[in-house]
């Protein structure tokens, strides 16, 4: 059995490991086109501030791990997939056959329609190569404009502040991380950032970027502001890398459509991670979730099914955790709530504390929090186990911080004797 995995990110690597565990004798190869060993984009912010060196971003020890598991790692671009002949053609002209193929090709940053994005001072922050470029230009005391205060924008925002730059953030939404936090929680992040000296412009966009000479650029904002900057970073979202299957029998919507076994419309081809549009746990709809936990869950589910050992999956829960210059926020599932559902909220602006729980009948279906680091994972447990909270729903309505107590009381027998 030959398993071929295109993409060397978390989904691809976890899938390769799960395949090896499930099938000790199979041939397994990961094909990735970046020059570095398999690494994690999640770790890039920590590389930007010298917390780790490049090797600290590696998903696994590149010298030993893959060889020990007899997983071949091939650094090549994939030019073409022939699903009828079950082969892929690589950039060097060679081709490889497969029995099962996993597409874990990830996503790429999208560029907003702004004139001047091709200037050398403008970068996205997605690859290690991007990170090296940012490190060169984001020197202490230099002016930096970050376009986009979504999840990725906010994650690198902290690294930029720690590099000592003068930072301006421009977000078209009316608040920071609008797809993860509501007005109150997003508002707390904005106040927090402004208190830290970051110039935050919400409900604002960049009209144009132009060369100012002397290595700087001029940045014009829709609110009339004019800024000069040594570096402009775009973080305005990502889009699934589906080009390889554009003219194939594999169905694509926002991403590659997969069933509950992570199988595409071609039964020998699977997809996982940012590129896959799979079942969302909360809605049952097919959605792209470009997040690390989903990538690794997808990778494992796909691998087990490729090895003939898997089952139908109940869908992945959308969730995020974010550290914005020391203020930690997270969100899970249907954090905006459901029609006819109840919600509980605690808001303390002075202490930058917030928690919001969303119920459907007596089940938790969504949650978000700011300023809370302890036991937040149990929000996933409460949602994903669809626990009927019973009387604990009313207790949580009165005190939404009692999430661990609710979970322990609903899942553990308080006395075994």
């Amino acid at each position, binding site marked *: 059995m030959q398993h071929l995995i295109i993409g060397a990110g978390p989904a691809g690597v976890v899938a390769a490991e799960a395949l090896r565990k499930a099938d000790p004798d199979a041939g397994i190869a990961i094909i990735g086109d970046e020059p570095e060993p398999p690494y994690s984009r999640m770790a890039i912010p920590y590389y930007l501030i010298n917390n780790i060196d490049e090797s600290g971003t590696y998903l696994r020890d590149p010298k030993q791990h893959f060889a020990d598991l007899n997983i071949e790692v091939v650094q090549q671009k994939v030019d073409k997939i022939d699903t009828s002949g079950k082969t892929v053609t690589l950039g060097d002209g060679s081709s490889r056959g497969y029995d099962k193929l996993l597409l874990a090709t990830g996503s790429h940053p999208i560029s907003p329609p702004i004139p001047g994005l091709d200037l050398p001072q403008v970068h996205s922050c997605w690859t290690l190569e991007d990170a090296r470029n940012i490190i060169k230009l984001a020197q202490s005391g230099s002016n930096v404009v970050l376009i986009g205060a979504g999840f990725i924008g906010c994650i690198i925002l902290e690294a930029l502040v720690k590099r000592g730059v003068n930072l301006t953030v421009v977000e078209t939404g009316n608040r920071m991380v609008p797809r993860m936090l509501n007005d109150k929680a997003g508002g707390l992040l904005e106040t927090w950032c402004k208190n830290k000296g970051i110039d935050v412009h919400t409900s604002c966009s960049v009209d144009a970027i132009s060369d100012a000479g002397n290595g700087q650029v001029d940045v014009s904002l829709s609110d009339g502001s004019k800024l000069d900057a040594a570096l402009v970073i775009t973080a305005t979202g990502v889009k699934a890398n589906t080009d390889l299957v554009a003219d194939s029998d594999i169905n694509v919507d926002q991403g590659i459509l997969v069933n509950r076994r992570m199988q595409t419309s071609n039964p020998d081809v699977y997809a996982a991670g940012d590129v896959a549009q799979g079942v969302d746990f909360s809605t049952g709809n097919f959605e792209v979730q470009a997040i690390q936990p989903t990538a690794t869950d997808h990778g494992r589910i796909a691998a087990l099914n490729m090895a003939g050992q898997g089952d*139908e999956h109940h869908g992945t829960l959308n969730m995020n955790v974010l550290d914005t210059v020391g203020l930690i926020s997270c969100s899970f599932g249907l954090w905006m709530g459901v029609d006819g559902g109840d919600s509980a909220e605690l808001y303390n602006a002075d202490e930058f504390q917030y928690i919001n729980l969303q119920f459907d009948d007596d089940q938790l279906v969504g949650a978000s929090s700011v300023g809370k*680091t302890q036991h*937040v994972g149990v929000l996933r*447990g409460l949602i*994903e186990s669809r626990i009927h909270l019973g009387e604990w729903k009313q207790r949580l309505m009165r005190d939404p911080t009692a999430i661990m107590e609710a979970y322990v009381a609903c899942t553990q027998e308080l006395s*075994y004797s």
Partner: protein
Amino acid sequence: MQKSLNIDPGKCTGCLQCEMACSYEHTGTFNPSRSYIKVFTFHHEGRFAPYTCTQCDEAWCMRACPVDAISVDMATGAKVVSDDKCVGCKVCTIACPFGTINYSQATGKVVKCDLCGGDPQCAAACPTDAITYVDADWTGYDRMLASAAKSLPSAEATAG
């Protein structure tokens, strides 16, 4: 025979000796807020429930980690965080559905129960045997683990 923490909430008096011992073992200070085991109080029921990582087989934290910072201690079976590798990204803290791996602002890393390398100090400190360190196939532990994982569909659907 691998051993596991067994918790019997019915025997817990809420004395918090386990939290003190845990924080002292891991941080050198008697600071329950930095303990990896936590005693939850149920005033209505007059009950206490110590709670910490069950070292579950799924190892959601380990799988979600983007930098390979969590590994299995082969001697104890504990899932252990490497401070050298952890970058503090917190992905594991939302991936763990039991809420038992948490970010420490004091260290900038995540922290979780590591079974103290095979000599768990919470169990040693517990005066009522509410926390014991016993053979892993002891039925009480199985019940606790089963309760913790109760109806978590991910665990069933992807069990390999």
